[in-house]
């Protein structure tokens, strides 16, 4: 296997008495678009700042192309950062901003000029060399910040919520542009965001963080379709979570019992009477009036909401829990008040352990095992 571009080993970071990053292990591969995703305060920005060298590790080690950089200063690491607020030097024009790193490297003037022109072309800001940052829009500043970082030919580009300050439309456009830029240049990107849609749209792999812990690492599809913890299931997209217990285990199939019903899922490694969560995406749920062989979850249709391409149906279970499901069209809807049975294709439901320590063991196991779920 190829050496990872960035490798974090047992990384721990404390701010005074608060543990912000808890024993983080992570390998980021060459040329991939890796996203650290999580709610604010989950430690994702701190992790990025640790890689950049702005924060000092409390414990653990960080390797850049196999070399331990834990003790290196930010200016000694061949990574560059795109800051959330762009952090363009206000006393320098666009050209001087982009050339900043090259001047530090004592690159020849003619070469700098050429490189700046090349970078401006890359971010589509040709002819803006003499503009001051204060004369530019947010989107333009963003591009300058990216050009300034990329001008140094970094091994890794670190991006700290770079699109956070842009309006929605520009944001969507920049997402695509960044993605294309990354693919064309082949530079490893480490992208931090709290926007799960953004993460799903842009990343090769995503690391979902919560409370300083990496809960899951995987491709967007894996993260979405096979979440390994309740947090991941809940944080990414919309989902229905049902409390259940394992009733019967048979070859590759598990029968679970809920407060109001029972279901069958494809899964292994669970034990009888174990408390679990069942997690099913709204688009994978179906309803029918009668019984199905393996499902018996009855509820009452509460409402239909038409939202354009699909319609949303809310079914209320006897215990008051609302189950959300989406159907492609408005046709064949059960009337409000109808009693319906909820079912899904048996591999569409994900079964999750409830006890946290077991979840963590599972993550560690999958991460250690070659060919585990962290392999794309």
């Amino acid at each position, binding site marked *: 296997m190829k050496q990872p571009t960035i490798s974090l080993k047992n990384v721990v970071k404390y701010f005074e008495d608060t543990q912000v990053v808890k024993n983080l292990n992570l390998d980021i591969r060459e040329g991939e678009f890796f996203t650290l995703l999580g709610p604010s305060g989950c430690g994702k920005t701190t992790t990025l700042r640790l890689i950049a*060298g702005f924060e000092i590790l409390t414990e653990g080690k960080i390797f850049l192309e196999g070399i331990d950089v834990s003790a290196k200063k930010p200016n000694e690491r061949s990574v560059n950062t795109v800051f959330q*607020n762009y*952090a363009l*030097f*206000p006393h320098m024009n666009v050209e001087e901003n982009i050339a900043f790193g090259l001047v530090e490297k004592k690159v020849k003037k003619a070469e700098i000029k050429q490189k700046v022109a090349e970078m401006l072309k890359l971010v589509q800001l040709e002819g803006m060399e003499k503009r001051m940052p204060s004369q530019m829009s947010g989107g333009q500043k963003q591009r300058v910040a990216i050009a300034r970082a990329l001008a140094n030919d970094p091994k890794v580009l670190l991006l700290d919520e770079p699109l956070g300050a842009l309006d929605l439309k520009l944001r969507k456009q920049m997402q695509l542009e960044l993605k294309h830029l990354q693919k064309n240049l082949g530079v490893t990107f480490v992208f931090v965001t709290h926007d799960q849609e953004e993460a799903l749209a842009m990343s090769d792999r995503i690391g979902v963080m919560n409370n300083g812990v990496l809960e899951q690492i995987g491709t967007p599809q894996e993260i979405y379709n096979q979440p390994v913890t309740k947090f991941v299931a809940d944080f990414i997209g919309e989902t229905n979570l049902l409390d259940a217990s394992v009733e019967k285990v048979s070859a590759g199939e598990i029968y679970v019992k809920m407060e109001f019903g029972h279901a069958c899922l494809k899964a292994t490694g669970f034990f009888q009477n174990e408390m679990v969560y069942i997690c099913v995406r709204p688009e994978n749920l179906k309803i029918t009036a009668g019984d199905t062989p393996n499902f018996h979850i009855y509820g009452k249709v509460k409402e239909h909401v038409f939202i354009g391409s699909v319609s949303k149906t809310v079914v209320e279970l006897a215990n008051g829990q609302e189950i959300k499901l989406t159907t492609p069209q408005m046709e064949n809807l059960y009337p409000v008040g109808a009693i319906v049975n909820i079912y899904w294709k048996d591999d569409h439901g994900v079964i999750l352990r409830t006890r946290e320590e077991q979840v963590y063991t599972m993550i560690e196991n999958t991460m250690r095992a070659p060919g585990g779920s962290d392999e794309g």
Partner: protein
Amino acid sequence: MKGKSRPDLPLYVMLGPTFLWLLIFVMIPLFNVIEISFLTKNPSGGIDFRFSVESYASLFKRDFMLIMYRSFALSLQTAVLCLLIGYPFAYVIANMPRDYRKYFLLFIMLPFWINSVIRIYGWTTLLRMEGVINTLLLTLGIISKPLEMLYTDGATLLGMVYELLPFAVLPLYASIEKLDVSLLEAARDLGATKARTFLRVIFPLTMPGVFAASLQTFIPSLGLFYISEMMGGGSTMYIGNLIKNQFLSARNWPLGAALSLFLILITLILLKLYTKVGKLEDMA
């Protein structure tokens, strides 16, 4: 302003008191000085109401030019020293944890509560031949003969810097404290060492503070006369002493007035320069 609207008072009521104040305490005295500067001195003191530009002509005499040159040199030295000491001082305070900053700023402000003549007098007891420092050094056997510190040009400079240092630290602190930390991180990230970051980012961005500090030390130091008298022994003449002497001992009011106006003119030019630089900074 919105919500609770105040009744709109007529302009003359709003500006009246300020105007009156300026008229009585600034304009009338200033015009008085201008008037005196164009009159003739009376040999027995006081002034004769006869028009003359003699005092302005004497501004260009060699002796006066020399005094002015010397004054500017002292002020420049004072301003530069205040910057050299004040910048690191302000930088350290601005980078302290927030809770400590206010105490250190308070320490800087504290001397303002004591009259500056008294504080300068305090320095003389330290620097005198038989003063605290000499006594201490003699007792410890570090020196065998008391050092001649007071009544030297060096002592004057020391007093000036001491007196004006807070005026340098405060504007410098204000501009350093405003610095966006992410800009410094960006510089480090782009390969600049700490020293290079200072040179290329921190210092240029704190230039408004440096300008303000220079002016706030340079301008007042031109007029400070009692420091050179108390600490320098009054043996070296500066423009401040010169003006004072014209009014109190030499009894040449027109010349004193002309010198004062010259000083005011210099100040105005410097202030104009400063606002120009300020405008340039705003544009950046």
